[in-house]
């Protein structure tokens, strides 16, 4: 029986705290092999996770590492260190707590390996790196507990798979290791429990009191939201008013770009000079830390932010959360609102601010879902094999290993429990030889098999390169932005390479809330100067884009069917009525397609409501068919509810394009050659170690003359179509980015009932699509035609006066992946 020692009890009461029932339950179940706690923010969740460790260490002295804490965010590790140090110091416990992330100085990292603290706070990537060292068995000897914080966030990505593979490793080093997971409210706790526990260990789920329901509403403004766009500038006065009325407000955005623009507009209107900061993942670390510190001190009245602030950082007295833009996902919205309030028993207060009229509909649908407690989620499927390949290479870095032992270890991870030995061996072969049909690397195998059957790195120096490339986060390539000055001007943050490539000296853009002028590129750094322009010339960089969940999409289409919309503000109800009048509203069981000319192109909009990935695939399949039909498609963009295709010729008869059989037939051949597959390949090949993001020489040179991953993809398609990485790419694309199941479902639902409207102008519902980022080009006959036109034009006008640059009123660049 693990009772709370008196010293702890006294400490609690001295602070005026009572021990929560779930905190006691965690102590009572401290010996469970795996335990998942689901608790709202402010419920003492982290302390609950650490109580067994603290009481154990206070009772029994321990040599070396006792508990490992893993969180998805570096900032969270630092924050927890601060919070844990308080009770440890006040209780006079002999416990050393340290954090270890990418930001930890090398000297301390080295010391931590030789002389680990009792509690080490780290991230999945830093843990994977630790397990790659030869001295890992010594460092982790005696490890008793592991606490995975915010496990619901890790469960959504490959970072979670990588973490669980690393835990499989630790469990073999320390068979009695106990696992604890801490999670926010989720739709499927069993799935998280299966992920956490060693397969097939049981995993009990503890549910803490969820606290009172959140107080959540849509912000009403005198001014109507615009027809399209994402910056919600119309709401600035109302948002400022809310900031004034509350102590501290968090203003969440879905993308970094929107956060930048909103912050800029907020400042222009901030006549009272309220202290307001901005925080997102593209800002320089120093800038972010400054804002975080100001927030903790209570110096800021509001902070404009993105998902980088999503996870449990202790923000003190936040009493209002504002979500700008539709929340896209009910679960994320609820978790975000949970951040608002760290007082356990007070309701969290939140306001939704739709950025345009379509989002008004989405916000109302989301509010309904929150009231009904209907969270959304999709199962993740089996463990990805590209992550497994990386894990095999990491294992090899630590020393010789037996394939059978590693297979047993890997299949003890829930997501990989059903992995066949054959599939495992193919991954091992890929790591060792490249896995090509043409066996040429016998001499230069990456992994060699020893006489005793174990595997090891052929060239030990390869360990360095493998370690440099650990991780599964697919950042688009970014470039640092600095103010131009003699040497080493002030760092401002990062922009994506694709965006940087679209800049011409003199262009102005927003970063960190200020307008800067692009001066040039020097040694992979974007140099800028301050610029007093009122309005930035080009759109700012894109950021992560969330997909609206299936459930929300269905709620939206249902709302469209109402005769009128008393729940919607008049401006939005009028807009929907106008759409019904000039075209039609999408209806269940039917497929609405609109065609019209705009922007010098023929536009076709397909309202499939198949989710963003499904709509994207639909875009790819349809453009392929349009290319075959000689309609010269140029590209498309997909949202959760529609696909907009533009090209040189008008679609007059869409029905034949939508025959499911032909769509299905086209899928296989089409899959081979499209941009989404190439993006997916690039991500998987990087994770699996075929492409290296970081090489020692690239860091030295600054400039890299590498060829694109597209060339590797094309080469494999042509000469080795059965290759493992193409197999992984297909699987990844089909389940994630392609989502062909949703298209089949749509085709069955519609069963040929197509409503084709040929219009003389953009329809109200289509307008927002023209401002969507993430445009996918179609590289077909149309590109050759355009190129020829442009080359001719350039030749004609060479030596003549300047050519007018293209209009800058739409996104000029595509988002990388």
């Amino acid at each position, binding site marked *: 029986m693990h009772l709370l020692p008196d010293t702890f009890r006294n400490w609690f009461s001295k602070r005026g705290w009572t021990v929560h029932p779930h905190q006691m339950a965690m102590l009572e179940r401290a010996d469970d092999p795996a335990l998942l706690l689901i608790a709202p923010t402010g419920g003492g969740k982290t302390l609950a996770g650490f109580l067994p460790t603290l009481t154990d260490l206070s009772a029994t002295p321990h040599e070396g590492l006792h508990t490992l804490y893993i969180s998805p965010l570096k900032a969270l590790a630092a924050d927890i260190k601060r919070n844990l140090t308080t009770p440890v110091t006040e209780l006079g416990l002999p416990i050393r707590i340290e954090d270890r992330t990418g930001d930890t100085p090398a000297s301390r990292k080295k010391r931590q390996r030789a002389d680990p603290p009792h509690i080490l706070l780290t991230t999945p990537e830093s843990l994977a790196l630790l397990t790659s060292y030869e001295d890992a068995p010594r460092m982790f000897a005696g490890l008793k507990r592991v606490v995975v914080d915010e496990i619901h966030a890790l469960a959504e990505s490959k970072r979670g798979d990588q973490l669980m593979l690393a835990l499989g490793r630790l469990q073999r080093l320390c068979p009695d290791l106990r696992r604890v997971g801490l999670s926010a409210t989720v739709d499927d706790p069993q799935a998280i429990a299966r992920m956490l526990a060693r397969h097939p260990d049981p995993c009990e789920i503890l549910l803490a009191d969820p606290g009172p329901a959140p107080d959540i509403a849509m912000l009403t403004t005198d001014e109507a939201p615009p027809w399209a766009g994402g910056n919600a500038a119309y709401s600035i006065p109302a948002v400022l008013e809310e900031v004034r009325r509350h102590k501290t407000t968090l203003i969440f955005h879905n993308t970094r770009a929107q956060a930048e623009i909103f912050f800029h507009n907020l400042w222009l209107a901030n006549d009272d000079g309220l202290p307001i900061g901005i925080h997102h993942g593209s800002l320089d670390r120093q800038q972010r830390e400054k804002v975080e510190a100001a927030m903790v001190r209570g110096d800021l009245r509001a902070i404009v932010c993105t998902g980088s602030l999503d996870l449990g950082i202790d923000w003190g007295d936040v009493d209002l959360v504002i979500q700008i833009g539709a929340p896209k996902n009910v679960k994320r919205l609820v978790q975000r609102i949970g951040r608002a309030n760290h007082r356990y028993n007070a309701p969290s207060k939140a306001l939704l601010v739709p950025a345009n009229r379509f989002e008004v509909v989405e916000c109302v649908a989301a509010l309904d879902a929150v009231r009904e407690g209907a969270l959304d989620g999709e199962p993740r499927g089996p463990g990805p094999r590209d992550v497994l390949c990386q894990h095999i290479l990491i294992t090899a870095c630590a020393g010789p290993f037996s394939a059978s032992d590693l297979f047993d270890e890997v299949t003890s991870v829930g997501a990989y429990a059903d992995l066949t030995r054959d599939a495992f061996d193919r991954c091992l072969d890929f790591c060792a*030889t*490249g896995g*090509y049909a*043409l066996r*040429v*690397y016998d*001499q*230069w*195998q*990456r992994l060699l098999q020893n006489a005793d059957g174990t595997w090891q790195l*052929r*060239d030990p*120096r*390869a360990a360095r*390169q493998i370690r440099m490339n650990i991780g599964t986060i697919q950042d688009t390539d970014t470039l640092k932005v600095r103010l131009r000055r003699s040497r080493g001007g002030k760092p401002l943050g990062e922009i994506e390479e694709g965006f940087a*490539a*679209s800049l*011409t*000296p*003199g262009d102005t853009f927003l970063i960190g809330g200020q307008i800067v002028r692009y001066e*040039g590129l020097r040694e992979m750094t974007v140099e800028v100067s301050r610029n007093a322009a009122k309005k930035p010339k080009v759109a700012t960089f894109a950021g992560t884009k969330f997909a609206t969940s299936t459930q929300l999409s269905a709620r939206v289409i249902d709302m469209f069917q109402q005769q009128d919309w008393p729940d919607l503000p008049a401006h939005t109800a009028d807009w929907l009525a106008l759409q019904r009048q000039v075209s039609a509203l999408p209806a269940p069981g039917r497929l609405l397609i609109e065609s019209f000319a705009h922007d*010098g192109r023929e536009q076709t909009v397909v309202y499939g409501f198949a989710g963003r990935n499904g709509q994207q695939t639909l875009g790819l399949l349809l453009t392929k068919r349009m290319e075959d039909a000689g309609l010269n498609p*140029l*590209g498309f963009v997909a949202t959760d509810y529609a696909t907009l295709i533009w090209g040189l010729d008008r679609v007059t008869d869409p029905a034949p394009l939508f025959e499911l059989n032909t769509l299905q037939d086209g899928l296989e051949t089409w899959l081979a050659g499209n941009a989404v597959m190439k993006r997916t390949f690039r991500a998987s090949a990087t994770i699996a*170690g*075929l*492409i*290296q993001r970081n*090489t020692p020489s690239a860091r030295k040179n600054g400039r890299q*003359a*590498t*060829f694109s991953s597209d*060339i*590797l993809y094309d*080469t*494999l398609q*042509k*000469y*080795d179509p059965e*290759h493992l990485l193409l197999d992984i790419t297909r699987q990844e694309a089909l389940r994630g980015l392609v989502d062909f199941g949703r298209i089949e479902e749509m085709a069955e639902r519609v069963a040929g009932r197509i409503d084709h409207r040929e219009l003389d102008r953009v329809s109200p519902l289509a307008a927002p699509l023209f401002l969507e980022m993430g445009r996918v*080009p179609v590289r077909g006959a149309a*590109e*050759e035609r*355009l*190129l*020829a*036109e*442009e*080359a001719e034009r*350039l*030749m004609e*006008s*060479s*030596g*003549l006066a*300047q*050519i007018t*640059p*293209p209009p800058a009123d739409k996104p000029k*660049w595509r988002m990388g992946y």
Partner: protein
Amino acid sequence: MNYHDISFSGAALKALGSGALWWPDQALLCVSDLHLGKSERVARRGGQSLPPYETRDTLTRLGEDLAFANARQVVCLGDSFDDLAAADAMPDDERLWITRLQAGRRWIWIEGNHDPGPVEFGGTHLQDLTLGPLTFRHIAQTGTHGEISGHYHPKASVQTRGRRVTRPAFLFDDRRMIMPAYGTYTGGLHARDAALADLMQPGTFAVLTGPQPLRVPMPMPGREPTA
């Protein structure tokens, strides 16, 4: 095969969409920076195991171009092999392939910085080659005329009314031409990069490779930084 006519230093040349240069009057085909054996070199150095198919892909394309141009002379403009060891390590079937391509043709290997010395393949090994008004060498020199070189793997972009298109490109002015890399596993250096831009004079053109090679002026009017 589509090509683009270029009159350069008095020679009538054709830039093929594949990145090869054809000189019909001499029945000559010139290709630059094949980087054969690149995947072998990367693997040998303990890096990745890239798909080992770039040599056959490059040779397949070269064979098609040789047949199309009915070439009797071939100039490989240096960096034909990713390094000399990669040339030595080439599998027998790929060696034979090269020998077959060489049969009945005058074949000149120009030395590059990656392959600075003779390789065990037939043909002539030269630092540079002067033929009529043209001089072929790997890296551009200053103060030359009629020079054709490679080394920089130039690529160029055109902003069309739909999008920006970037492709490997021939660059040429009155005095020199810099050829795009022909090898399958070769990256590119943008024509705007100082290393390239400083070599070229005003009045430079780029010919973008691709299904239909196209000539554009460099730097492009109205698109370049205003000084």
